[in-house]
């Protein structure tokens, strides 16, 4: 696959030990372009956009952020918790500002769904449609996102 120097640098920065300990690709062997293309296709099939996903994650993140050391409950049976730590993490994508470190835990006891994301995930999803590779700790699977946020 032909890559521009910038794309090569992004793929490199996504590897473990570059910007974060485990990287952004998990055990996914695909190029980040392929991961993005497949996830965007899945979103389109589900009838949602990356911006809608980012908006929802942002809304929940802000709600959890305001509930320092507590759980936010956007709906009965759903809890969101922001584990905030000092420091910032750099984005593998050129030109994206560093994001706050920290992780947001989501738990839906009714649908039995649990997953987590970081402030950086929201930026990467909004700007590039990058949900991280399969097996990555903070991978957000579009189908699970759809089930959690958009399915009636």
């Amino acid at each position, binding site marked *: 696959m*032909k890559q521009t120097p910038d794309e090569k640098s992004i793929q490199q920065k996504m590897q473990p030990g570059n910007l974060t300990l485990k990287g952004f690709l998990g055990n996914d062997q695909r190029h980040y372009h392929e991961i993005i293309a497949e996830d965007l296709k899945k979103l389109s099939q589900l009838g949602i956009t990356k911006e809608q996903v980012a908006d929802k994650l942002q809304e929940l993140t802000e709600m959890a952020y305001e509930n320092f050391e507590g759980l936010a409950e956007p709906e009965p049976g759903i809890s969101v918790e922001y584990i905030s730590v*000092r420091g910032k993490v*750099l984005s593998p994508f050129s*030109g994206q500002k*560093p994001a706050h470190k920290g992780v947001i835990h989501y738990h839906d006891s009714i649908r039995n769904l649990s997953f987590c994301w970081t402030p950086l995930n929201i930026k990467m999803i909004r700007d590039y449609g990058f949900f991280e590779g399969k097996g990555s*700790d903070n991978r957000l699977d579009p189908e699970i996102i759809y089930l959690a946020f958009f399915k009636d």
Partner: protein
Amino acid sequence: MLILILQTTGLTALIAGLLSLILVIAERYLADYGECKIDINGKRKEVVKGGSSLLATLNEKKIYLASACGGRGSCGFCKCLVLDGGGPLLPTEKPFLTTDEISQNIRLACQVKIKQDIKIQIPEAIFNIRKYKAVVEKIVDFTYDIKELTFRLLEPATIDFKAGQYVQLHTRSYEKIKNPVSRAYSISSNPSQSNLLQLIIRRVPEGICTTWVHDYLKEGEEIEFTGPFGDFYIRETEADMLFIAGGSGKAPIKSMLEWLAENKSQRRMVYFFGARAVQDLYLTEYFHDFEKKLADFNYVPVLSQPLENDKWEGRTGYITQYLTEFVRDCANTEAYLCGSPAMINAMVKGLKECGIKDEKIYYDSF
């Protein structure tokens, strides 16, 4: 037809790629900018070989601007006022600068290449920043995820800093970590002990530097750090002092209290330390001892989620609910905060509700 288009497109991309490569090689090996002068604050002039970034060139002259990405243009920390000779603003800088900063000619030093004489302005305090070599004298476990590191300075042998400031610790390579990183940590030792430096470091999940500190760094090893940085320090007034910290945020407050005790401060002070449960508390007796060393000081740990078997008899809930007990004159109270961004956000709101003004609330925003 399609094949022809694809072949043409592919060929064009290949030629463009080759040309870019040639330009990069030519820039690196053939471009000669000769000697250039850097005018710093109109006071200091450095003659340097052109061709490198402003950040790297200043580092060679032992002038250290903050940087967490090693000059890769991805952290945006190395901001610097360039008065003349910086060349045009690059697209790689724009995302990190506000409109105001752009209009004031603030640039990212790692992206500005020295190709001609250049005039810059930097805070005077930056001249006090040095790169230090030190040896790890002691590592102490404070909790299951917090360690205290004590470094004995080797070169330079002493450091001059204000209680509350921070340093950037540089990692070495380990396992999959090929590129060393730099991370900011508040100094926890007393400035009067100028031949040593202490840090309190909490393990961050996925953290490259904290994993190195917690799992790889050993006593006796040599390390490097740069500093001191930051505007978080004690304001020399007679105002009441409110300290609030959580987790490893205890570090700069420890440094401040040690300094205040040594200098026999008569100011009225209270220190609220927020934690979830007893397992997250540390140095409790140490901080209660300041109640004897300082004229008017109280240490108040507050647990938000104590466990049943903690048998905790102290205060519970959130620090903000206890602020009004301490604040007797909001116009005459300074607040010094250190903790996670969410903690700072919650505390700033609580302090403002108490009537303490923004300009009297001090914290580092990293």
